[in-house]
């Protein structure tokens, strides 16, 4: 990377296949692929990636060093209806999307129909053995956006899928752990539990886009 990296050079930090492009007069993150949730699409087929609807989008928008370069294999836990994972599949390689609730998977299926590298799995992220016969080992990037209690436990249990030099990208929702506790206390507990399996690289509050969420970048120990 050049040493005069500045705002004009910001795209250099983004994975290949993710670009900042003008939408409605504003520079926004975007990826190239079939439209999914009514997001704006420009004339070259790039569709805006709404950081307000996507925790991973917010982490990129805030300049966190995700280590994503484009083309990597991804295990995405908590894919929901596919808003974020659709963008991931646009720039990544094989993308495994795990979601537990049937209703959102109905929408996720539509997203997967339009993408050759997106594999939807109606499975419980707390029970990795139920999809370890499908998801390959040596995954480059584990993305986690599960709104359930025990988010750190899920991350630890799914460590086995990650390559030794892989990355965990995780958005912790404080309210999923405990609606009454102070978010900072919740985040401290989550980070402490992650410590058994991961080395922390970076954390940042995502509040500009998502209230009471912490973005975490880590690598396996």
């Amino acid at each position, binding site marked *: 990377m050049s040493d005069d990296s500045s705002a004009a050079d910001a795209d250099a930090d983004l994975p290949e296949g993710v670009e900042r492009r003008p939408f409605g007069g504003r520079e926004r993150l975007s990826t190239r692929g079939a439209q999914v949730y009514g997001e704006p699409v420009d004339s070259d087929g790039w569709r805006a990636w709404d950081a307000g609807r996507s925790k991973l989008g917010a982490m990129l928008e805030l300049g966190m060093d995700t280590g994503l370069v484009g083309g990597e294999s991804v295990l995405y836990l908590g894919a929901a209806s596919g808003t974020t994972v659709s963008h991931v599949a646009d720039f990544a390689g*094989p993308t495994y999307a795990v979601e537990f609730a*049937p*209703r959102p*998977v*109905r929408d*996720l*299926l539509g997203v*997967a*129909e339009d993408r*050759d*590298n*997106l*594999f*939807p*799995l*109606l499975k419980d992220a707390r029970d990795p*053995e*139920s999809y*370890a*016969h*499908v*998801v*390959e*080992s*040596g995954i480059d990037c584990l993305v986690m956006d599960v709104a359930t209690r025990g988010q750190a436990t899920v991350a630890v249990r799914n460590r*086995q*899928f990650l390559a030794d030099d892989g990355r965990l990208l995780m958005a912790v929702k404080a309210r999923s752990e405990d*609606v*009454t506790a102070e978010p900072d206390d919740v985040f401290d507990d989550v980070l402490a539990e992650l410590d058994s399996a991961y080395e922390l690289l970076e954390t940042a509050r995502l509040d500009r886009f998502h209230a009471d969420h912490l973005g975490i970048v880590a690598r396996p120990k």
Partner: protein
Amino acid sequence: MTDAWFAGADPDDPESGATRVRTGRAPAPADWPAEAVDAGFAADETDYYAKLRSATLAAASEAVAERERADDVQLAHAVRAMDDAERTANELAERVVEWAGTLYEEVPRGLDGVRDIAERDPKTAAEERVVSYATRAVDLLDERDDLRAFIEERAPTTAPNLAEMAGPVLAARLIALAGGLESLAKKPSGTVQVLGAEDALFAHLKGRATSPKHGVIFTHEYVRGTRPGDRGSAARALAGKLSIAARVDHYSGDYRPDLHAELADRMETIRARADEEADE
């Protein structure tokens, strides 16, 4: 022998792979793409991912269809639709009565008024509109009744103990609020007690209010028909047995008469308190 999803699956039949994707398990992941090529299941990595895609798409779509068609999901939708129909019918009724009052001398109040207006023979263009509008409201009321009949017929087969104890409509409401019979079966009885009172519960957890005594189970005769001072006990007893009923329904499906007798006994004891105090 491998645990891989493609073990034993026919490479040319995505359906056979889909079944393995849905039901298989493995203690740990492995380099499945390489194994599949070695085993001759796929010609190369690209071919492997194409086959994996067909199998996962088919598996997810079957699993979703199966789960969404399940009886408890249907019950939950039916009770929500019933509430929508009733709420909307009431809203239309208000307008009908208000409007009809400007055209006709005598208009009965409420839903009776709507049925009355819908029967009339319109003589002017305005009357025609108001009568037609009333007809829509009446249709919605009929739809609500049909939905209730559907719930009353279905709930006892989907959740026999819960339907017996709560009544079919409240049983369906609890299933809807919990997000399915399985989720309801897994909830502690304290949660079942306050299902439907989430706003009050969160106010309490944030320290702004006392804890709610009951949620939607308030509509049950055992709670509503108990004097206010004993309603907390009644709600607790009812919720305890309801959650056991949901567990029996989910895990075994047998009808358990003793469960209902125990609750009846317990309620008798709670209600006897009021009589004792009256005697003193």
